[in-house]
C-alpha cells in the first residue's frame, strides 16, 4: 500500500474505522490471523518457523490528531476542540475535512485590519477559532455537522525538496506503512503486528492490546519531533531528518530496555542501516503501555524524525522511513 493512501485516510483517535478498514484489507493479504479487539486495535499474528523463539510484537498507531465539533454560532460557524495535542497556533487559516464523507471546512481568522495591536499579539486559542462550512445558520450547521462530528486536517500528500514528504498524519501512518511491509516476510519468531487505536489521547489502545498479547518483546514504530531548524539551539535538536531512524533510550513515558536499545544500534551499524540516537527525552508513546500492561514486556522505540509533527503538514524524509523498516526487519531476522 502506498504511504499516500494511508496518510489521506480518515482516522482521528476514537474514530479509526476508515483507516482500519483500509489496513485490514491489506493485512489480510499478508496474514491469515487478523482480528480486532474491543478497543479497535487490529492484531495480525504471523507464526514463526521456529516455535522455540520468543514472540515479538511490533506496533504502530493508526489514529491521528484531529478535531471534534462542540457547538455553533448563529452565523452557522462550527465551534471545535482538538483531539490530541494540537497547538492552536498551527490551525489558523487551514483546511479541514469533516466526517468520513469529507465535508470541506476552513478555519479562518479575523481580518488583520480589524485587530488592535494588542489583539494581534495574542494567540488565537480554540475559544476564538471557528470552522466555516458555508452553512447559513445554526440549524443548517447542526444538520451538516452534528455535535461530536470528527474532523481532520485536509492536506494532500506531497513530495518535495530532496526526498522529503509532507502530509497529514505521517505520525504514525509511516509506522503503519512499515508494519504492513514487515508482514510481507517470514521470520523464525512469531510476529504479532499491532495497529493501535487512541494513541494520541493517552496511549489507550495499546493498553488493552498489550494486555492480551503473549509477546516478550515489543518494538514500537513511531514518528518523533525533530526540532532541528530555525531558532532551536543545536543542543535542543532532538534528531536530524536524513540521518536515519531514531532509537530512543528514554522518553517521557518509558525507558527502553537497555539490551534492546544497544542491540538496535549495533545491528544498524553492522548492516549499514542509517540510525541515530534520539537526543532528548521528549514525547511519549505506546511503548509505555506495552511495557507495563499485563505481565509486562521489554520494549524499544524506533522513530522516524518528523518536523511539525502535530500540524497540517508533517514533514519526514524517505530515507529515514526506509531505515525504520530496514532496522525493524533486520531485528526480526536477527532473533
Amino acid at each position, binding site marked *: 500500500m502506498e504511504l499516500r493512501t494511508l496518510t489521506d485516510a480518515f482516522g482521528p483517535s476514537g474514530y479509526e474505522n476508515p483507516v482500519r478498514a483500509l489496513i485490514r484489507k491489506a493485512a489480510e493479504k499478508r496474514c491469515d490471523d487478523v482480528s480486532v479487539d474491543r478497543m479497535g486495535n487490529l492484531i495480525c499474528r504471523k507464526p514463526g518457523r521456529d516455535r522455540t523463539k520468543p514472540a515479538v510484537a511490533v506496533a504502530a498507531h493508526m489514529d491521528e490528531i484531529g478535531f471534534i465539533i462542540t457547538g455553533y454560532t448563529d452565523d452557522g460557524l462550527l465551534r471545535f476542540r482538538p483531539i490530541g495535542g494540537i497547538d492552536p497556533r498551527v490551525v489558523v487559516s487551514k483546511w479541514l475535512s469533516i466526517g468520513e464523507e469529507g465535508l470541506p471546512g476552513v478555519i*479562518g481568522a479575523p481580518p488583520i485590519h480589524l485587530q488592535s495591536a494588542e489583539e494581534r499579539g495574542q494567540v488565537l486559542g480554540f475559544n476564538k477559532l471557528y470552522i466555516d462550512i458555508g452553512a447559513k445558520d445554526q440549524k*443548517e450547521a447542526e444538520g451538516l455537522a452534528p455535535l461530536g462530528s470528527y474532523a481532520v486536517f485536509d492536506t494532500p500528500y506531497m513530495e518535495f525538496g*530532496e526526498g522529503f514528504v*509532507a502530509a497529514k498524519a505521517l505520525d504514525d501512518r509511516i509506522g503503519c506503512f512499515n508494519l504492513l511491509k514487515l508482514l510481507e516476510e517470514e521470520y523464525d519468531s512469531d510476529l504479532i503486528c499491532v495497529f493501535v487505536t487512541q494513541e494520541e489521547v493517552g496511549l489507550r489502545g495499546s493498553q488493552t492490546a498489550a494486555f492480551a498479547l503473549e509477546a516478550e518483546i515489543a518494538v514500537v514504530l513511531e514518528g518523533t519531533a525533530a526540532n532541528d*531548524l530555525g531558532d532551536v539551539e543545536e543542543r535542543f535538536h532532538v534528531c536530524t531528518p536524513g540521518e536515519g531512524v531514531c532509537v530512543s533510550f528514554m522518553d517521557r513515558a518509558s525507558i527502553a530496555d537497555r539490551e534492546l536499545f544497544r542491540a538496535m544500534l549495533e545491528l544498524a551499524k553492522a548492516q549499514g542501516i542509517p540510525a541515530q540516537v534520539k537526543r532528548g527525552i521528549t514525547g511519549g508513546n505506546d511503548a509505555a503501555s506495552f511495557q507495563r500492561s499485563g505481565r509486562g514486556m521489554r520494549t524499544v522505540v524506533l522513530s522516524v524524525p518528523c518536523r511539525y509533527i502535530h500540524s497540517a503538514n508533517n514533514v519526514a524524509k524517505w530515507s529515514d522511513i526506509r531505515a525504520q523498516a530496514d532496522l525493524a526487519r533486520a531485528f526480526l531476522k536477527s532473533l
Partner: protein
Amino acid sequence: MEIKAFLQEVTTRRGLPGDEGPVAQWVAERFSEYCDEVRVDAMHSVVGRIKGEGPRLAFVAHLDEVGLMVTNIEEDGSLRLGQVGGIDPRILPGMRLKVFGLETLPGIVGAKAPHLLSQEERSKAQTLGDMYVDLGLAPDKVKELVRVGDQVQLEQRFVDLKNGRVASKTLDDRCCVAILYRAMQLLEGLKHQADLYFIASSQEEVGGRGAMTSAFHTEPDMAMVLDVGFAHQPGCDREVTRNLDAPLNTVGPYLNPVLTKKLEDIAKQIKVSLQKEVAPRGTGTDTDEVSASRSGVPSVLIGVPVRNMHTAVEVLDLSALEEAARLVAHFAAAARTAWEEELWN
C-alpha cells in the same frame, strides 16, 4: 468562461505587488474576449476598453495579492520572510507556501514547537521573525535556487463550501476582477453610451499605486471602484461587518453622493439589494487615489463582503458576486454625459 472558473483560475496566478506580470497577462487575455482594446501598462495594471461616445467611465478592481518575500537565508537552509502587504503572521505556521526562486519551490512554515517555549512565550503570538520556511533542501541547494528578495505566495486551495460559498486566497480583490469580467459578458446584451474602461490595478496592497497611474492615463470622467469588505464573523465589531450574501456600497466624503444616488436607483430598478458601508474618511481602497486623480474623478465604491480577509481562506458568497456584476453592467449601460451636469448641483 464562467465566473467561478475565472475566479478559481485567477486566484492561482502569481501577482504580488510589483510582480503582477503573470496574472496581468492572463487577465488581459480574458478581457480581450470582450474588449475593443486591452493594454498592460508600465505598472502591470490591465486596462481594457469597450468603446463608446462618452462619458469616460472607469471601473477599477485590484489585481495584486498580499504575500511574503525572502529577506534572509539561514545557514541551515531555512528562509526568513518579510511581508508584502498586510499579513497576520498568525496564519502561517504549518502552511505550504510557494517560493518563486529560480524554480517554483513548495515550502512549509515552521516555528519553535510549544514544548520549547517558556510559559511567557507561549502566551504571546509568534511574530514573522519567529518563523521560517523549510524547503526540504540542503543549504547549498537553497542558496543556488533562492535569492533574497524572491517573492513568496500563500497556499492556494480553492474550496467549495455549502450554499455557493467558496474559500480561497486572494479573493481580495480578484473576485472584483471577476465581477468586471462577468459584467463585460452581461454588457453584450445591453446598450451603452459611455466609453468604458476596465482597470485591473496593480500595487493596491501597498497603497493604490497602480490605480494612480492608470487613472491618470485613462482620464475618466467618473469611476466605480470595486473592492472587498468585511463580512460578519466572530472577533469583529458588527458595526463594520455585513452579511455575506449581498453586495456592498460604501458612502462617505471620498465618494460622490449624487453618483451614489444614481447607483442606488439603478440597483432598485434591477432589484439588487445593496448593503451600506460607511467610510468616515479614507476608504482604504483604490478610490482614495482614483477620486483625486488629475482634477478629480467623482467616484462610487461597491464590493462584496468576505470573511477572513488577507488569509489563505477568504470566504465569499458567489451570489453576491453575480449581483454585483449585474449592477456594474447596468451602471455602465446607464451612464450618460448629462450626469456630469448633475454631479455638482
